């Protein structure tokens, strides 16, 4: 005669392995999903380094803010990484597996994000930074940044947004412009910034970088 206890035991014995396998399966599903290369998984991958809201991150290298960035600029940079016109070993690895449609989808997604700026820049030369941003340095052949990047630093088309950009990233880019960008023989739009980057002194770079890092 089968008692209630043995029925319960039988149910538990069959149910428990199912629960355990389901729990293990959940972890497997997540790994499988990430590797299937969908847009959501790829975005999470970008945000692991660039910040969960695309606000940027300070790793061993500074990772720039992507939130609110001009989509054409992001696409152009991803292509530059792939074609090695912009030298960056990490971003080459990231970008070279991206399909053209994925490039566009990623770039479009980040435009819609709007977290507060990352912050943390030194505050000593914000006034000087503002002056350079708005008026340039005519005596040094440095145009006003706002002339191309917009009065609010939001950029347009292929001209990048600077507002809220990570301070250490901007400093690194402006001081090392020709080391990373415009590599190879193909003409590259980055050439337009080369004279300006060259004509700014280190302390002027730091002042401008600090100023734009605080722009909302």
């Amino acid at each position, binding site marked *: 005669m089968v008692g209630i206890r043995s029925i319960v035991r039988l149910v538990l014995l069959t149910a428990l392995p199912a629960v355990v396998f389901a729990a293990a399966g959940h972890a497997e599903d997540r*790994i499988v999903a990430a*590797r299937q*290369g969908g847009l959501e998984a790829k975005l999470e*991958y970008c*945000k*692991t380094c660039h910040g969960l809201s695309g606000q940027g*991150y*300070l790793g061993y290298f500074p990772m720039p803010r992507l939130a609110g960035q001009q989509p054409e600029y992001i696409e152009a940079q991803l292509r530059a990484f792939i074609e090695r016109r912009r030298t960056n070993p990490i971003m080459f690895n990231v970008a*070279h*597996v991206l399909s053209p449609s994925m490039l566009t989808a990623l770039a479009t997604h980040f435009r819609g994000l709007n977290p507060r700026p990352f912050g943390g820049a030194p505050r000593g030369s914000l006034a000087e930074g503002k002056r350079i941003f708005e008026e340039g340095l005519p005596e040094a052949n440095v145009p006003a940044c706002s002339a191309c990047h917009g009065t609010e630093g939001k950029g347009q088309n292929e001209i990048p947004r600077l507002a809220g950009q990570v301070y250490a990233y901007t400093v690194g880019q402006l001081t090392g412009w020709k080391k990373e960008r415009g590599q190879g023989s193909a003409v590259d739009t980055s050439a337009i910034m080369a004279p300006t980057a060259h004509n700014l002194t280190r302390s002027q770079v730091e002042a401008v970088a600090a100023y734009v890092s605080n722009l909302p």
Partner: protein
Amino acid sequence: MLNARKLGIMKRIGLKIAILAIVATAIPAWAGDDAGIRNCTWCHGTSGQGYMVAPRLAGQRPQYIESQIRSFREHTRDNPFSKQYMWGAVAALDPDAARDLAIYFAKIAPKAANDGDRDLAARGRTIYLEGIPEANIVSCYACHGPDAEGVRDIPRLGGLAYFYLKGRLEQWGQGYHSGIESPMPLVASKLGPDEIEALASYLSFVK
């Protein structure tokens, strides 16, 4: 009255005291008291090189040690051994004491554990430097540096014990948490078991 024999004894004792005094000052002084250090070295090893499940503290980024002590006090880092041992161990550590301990251990030269699987180290190195972009696995190098040395509050991974690294990577995949702003749960949740073993092996050999 002093005789020659007593004088000789006093001279020898005096000499021993003088030697002891010189040697004692040569031992590096630490801020924070002896009891504070000993509370750590019981488990983390006499020179902070790690022992069993307790990871090496020697040569670790001081800001990282401080941030982990905070995460134990705030209970944000919740992997089983942390909850069982570390939550209690640091409950009474105020931020100044935590900083002193962190600086003390950071200055000790680290020794690599060298206990990973040598056959997996090459693959681990590739994953460390490049990630696996097709699988959305980020490059560890981007945050932890070319030699896994870390920076600011991002930890040095080079030379940590294989089983410790493996355990941490697995735990994030299982849903355990880090300190509040750590991207590691997101990073590690994509890693498969083979990749974890390769990474942990490679890192255990990095000086």
